[in-house]
């Protein structure tokens, strides 16, 4: 069956009676499913709960920082709050979110396959995620950890707080991440539809493939490092303990060898989402398809070389500081290429103004601002002043909230009709999107200035001169939280009583839109044969105007 003419004008939307959601009934059928779409929906629910939890911790931290002294909680509780905000947000939301939800749901659909390469392994990843999450959260209840999400060595191995459950939880979450990455790499290598060469895969598939490479090759090192910290804390083996001859900077090397590629595990999938959504929203071929695909792989590989820029002031040698700084600049260039290509994709497009469009506009601004402040922090002399201050906090939130969560929300809104067969209310969508973009700016621009003024991270009490900016940031964060609540409300409403979406509401050329929405249990009735390049929005037989800039 050749590629159907997806650009036919909208016929009346039909909701398939039998689809993956109601193919088999009962909770047990959900808990033992090997259908990648059901696993994706379960990931979506768990990941949103984790995001809610992380958000609550964030609000607790922001409210505490309203006054220079104790506001609502004691020092120990505050230290637990920011640690858990870090651990929950990074290990339970950012890393598993887009690969777990959209990777699982869309990768087989975009490749024209029936399922991922190892369906049972996919279910095991989900169970490992749940086990790791419960372990980490029980660690919270059993007294919690106050070491920050980085578990730096001499403090994490000598603090009396219960650290072992969280470390074990992170270790198991690492396994879940490895298995997902492994699954996706094999799927992309072996289960592509006939006619789909490497250059005919959609850019979301490229981004997920690059992310999976990082997941598979970087996560084992954090698994070992976290285990070593656990053994060190329990057994006192002296591996990172200077009083026994160990070297704490070695811990930092091993930790950041994973954690810097980990930030690319978080941002690359959202770049993939943006590439796909921007093409669909602008109804145009992606400008510089090859450049974006190769820079995804470029970020994946060169990202492994740059971990030292987290340790500029940690006693690392000036030579290594210089080496890591140069390499960080090259990783920055790959992101710059992508942003230029996305903006160029909008040129002479036919842009539909919808909620994903606002997220994309926000994404582009935040990606450039966040990315370039990252480059600024990589110039070593500035990092001496900025390291471990709120400037760095603002930088990585610009990337994590500004780029990754904007990408996640753009994807959630764009693929919501495909996943659940219903449409969300466009008006509310745009209101919420603008609120979030505004609230985000109001929260994190003051934090850049706080960093310049010299306020260090993880401060429970701070000198009075920083109070003004902190109050502004807290006000902004409540606006941001309000935006997220609105999204939750209208998405749940759309889930229950949204109007039907039909197979291809956005009239997009993605392969995943060829099947019904919500898709059948076995995705495609016949495996599609791919004959065109991805994202080509010309009607068949229409004369195509070629433009080269």
């Amino acid at each position, binding site marked *: 069956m050749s590629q159907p003419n997806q650009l036919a004008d909208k016929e009346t939307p039909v909701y398939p009676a039998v689809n993956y959601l109601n193919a088999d009934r009962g909770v047990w059928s959900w808990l033992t499913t090997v259908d990648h779409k059901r696993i994706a929906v379960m990931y979506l629910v768990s990941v949103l709960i984790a995001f809610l939890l992380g958000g609550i911790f964030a609000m607790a931290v922001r409210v505490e920082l309203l006054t220079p002294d104790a506001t609502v909680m004691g020092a120990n509780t505050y230290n637990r709050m920011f640690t858990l905000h870090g651990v929950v947000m990074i290990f339970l939301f950012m890393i598993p979110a887009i690969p777990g939800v959209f990777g699982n749901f869309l990768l087989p659909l975009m490749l024209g396959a029936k399922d991922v390469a190892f369906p049972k392994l996919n279910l095991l990843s989900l169970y490992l995620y749940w086990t790791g999450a419960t372990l980490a959260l029980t660690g919270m209840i059993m007294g919690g950890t106050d070491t920050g999400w980085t578990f730096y060595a001499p403090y994490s191995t000598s603090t009396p707080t219960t650290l072992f459950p969280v470390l074990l939880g992170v270790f198991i979450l690492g396994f879940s991440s490895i298995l997902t990455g492994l699954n996706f790499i094999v799927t992309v290598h072996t289960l592509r539809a006939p006619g789909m060469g490497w250059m005919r895969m959609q850019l979301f598939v490229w981004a997920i493939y690059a992310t999976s490479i990082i997941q598979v090759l970087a996560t084992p090192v954090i698994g070992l490092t976290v285990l070593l910290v656990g053994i060190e804390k329990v057994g006192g083996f002296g591996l990172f303990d200077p009083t026994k001859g160990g070297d704490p900077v070695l811990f930092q090397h091993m930790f950041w060898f994973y954690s810097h590629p980990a930030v690319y595990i978080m941002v690359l999938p959202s770049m993939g989402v943006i590439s796909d959504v921007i093409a669909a929203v602008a109804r145009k071929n992606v400008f510089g398809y090859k450049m974006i695909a190769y820079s995804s792989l470029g970020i994946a590989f060169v990202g492994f070389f740059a971990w030292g820029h987290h340790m500029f002031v940690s006693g690392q040698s000036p030579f290594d*500081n210089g080496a890591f700084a140069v390499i960080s600049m090259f990783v920055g*260039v790959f992101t710059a290429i992508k942003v230029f290509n996305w903006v160029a994709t909008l040129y002479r497009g036919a842009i539909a103004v919808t909620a994903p469009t606002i997220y994309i506009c926000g994404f582009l601004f935040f990606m450039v601002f966040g990315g370039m402040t990252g*480059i600024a922090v990589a110039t070593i002399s*500035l990092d001496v002043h900025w390291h471990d201050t709120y400037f760095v906090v603002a930088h990585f939130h610009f990337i994590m909230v500004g780029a990754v969560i904007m990408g996640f929300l753009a994807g959630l809104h764009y693929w919501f009709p495909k996943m659940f067969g219903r449409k969300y209310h466009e008006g509310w969508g745009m209101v919420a999107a603008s609120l979030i973009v505004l609230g985000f700016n109001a929260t994190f621009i003051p934090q850049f200035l706080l960093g310049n003024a010299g306020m260090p991270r*993880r401060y*429970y009490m701070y000198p009075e001169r920083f109070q003004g900016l902190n109050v502004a940031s807290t006000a902004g964060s409540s606006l941001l939280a309000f935006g997220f609540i609105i999204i939750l409300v209208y998405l749940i409403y759309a889930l229950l009583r949204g109007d039907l979406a039909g197979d291809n509401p956005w009239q997009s050329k993605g392969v995943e839109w060829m099947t019904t929405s919500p898709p059948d249990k076995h995705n495609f009735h016949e495996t599609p044969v791919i004959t065109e390049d991805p994202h080509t929005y010309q009607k068949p037989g229409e004369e195509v105007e070629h433009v080269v800039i």
Partner: protein
Amino acid sequence: MNDFMRNLLWLPVQASTFAKSVDNLHYFVITVTMIASIATGLLAFFFFFKYRQRRSGQSTPNVIPSVRFEIAVIGLPLFFFLLWFVQGFKDYIWYTTPPKNTMDVYVMGKKWMWKFAYAGGGPNAIGTLHVPEGRPVRLLMTSRDVIHSFYVPDFRIKQDVLPGRYTETWFEATKPGRYQVLCAEYCGTWHSQMWGEIVVMPAPEFDKWLQQQRAGLADRVDTGGDDGGDFRGSIVEYGKKVAMSEGCLRCHSLDGTQHIGPTWLDMYLRRETLENGQVVIADEGYLTDSMIDPRAKVVKGFKPVMPTYKGRLTAPEAAALVEFIKSLRSENLENLPSKEAVYEPAKPARR
């Protein structure tokens, strides 16, 4: 312009030589970042309106990049990024190489407080450090428990303080005043209260203050209680106590008399000729190495009988010994190399 940008970005006052060059690069980087991100945001916004979807199912041209465009897209950002790197690395190398004539201060980071001890002998204090204006000050820092980070926003300097070893940083204050020291590496419950203060005084006023402090040193201990820390009184006294307990004084005299080992009087920065004829300056490096590996550089005329103290001296003890040796200075200005060893019991020379 400098003050306008500094206030715009909420940067603290520039109170050290390093601060100025850092801020100049800062202004350049931040302006280019602001221009680039606003331009991208506006361009995207402009495209949103100019190329709105006018009718449903509207088809669009196939726009592809030319090689020229690709090179520009890679070249332009790379040029700026590498330019910043070069300037940043140059400033950083200047920052990590302290000048020769620095005034050394030993900094001890301990759970939620900073302790300062002047290298050349002088009052050591908890929390406040008095430094002269216009003279480079080098901080030799170590920690007693976990990793801290010595951060002075007004000087734009920050350096992690690691347990079990020394890290160093330096600054040259340009404006008298009181500047806050903050801990920047999470170190426990009261990480947020681990503040200190650097009081920058005009140079003559500082010298007078130091002289006055040193005079009354013997009887007045400035450090206050210390829970079992090994800094009882000044570091020089501590060094003397270590020298006595480790048996150094059996071979090294303190008042210039010849004995089994070279005398420690006026040893610091003395030009010693070694057994192999090589001439070496007895600076901290030589003193520490000789403690660890005495047979490596034996002074001419002396037997290599000194046992190695490798593994028997902890870092603070070795440092205290060095300070004790540096504090033994007689009035004679000219520093003669040591003569040969004398094997009778040492008679205290009358001076």
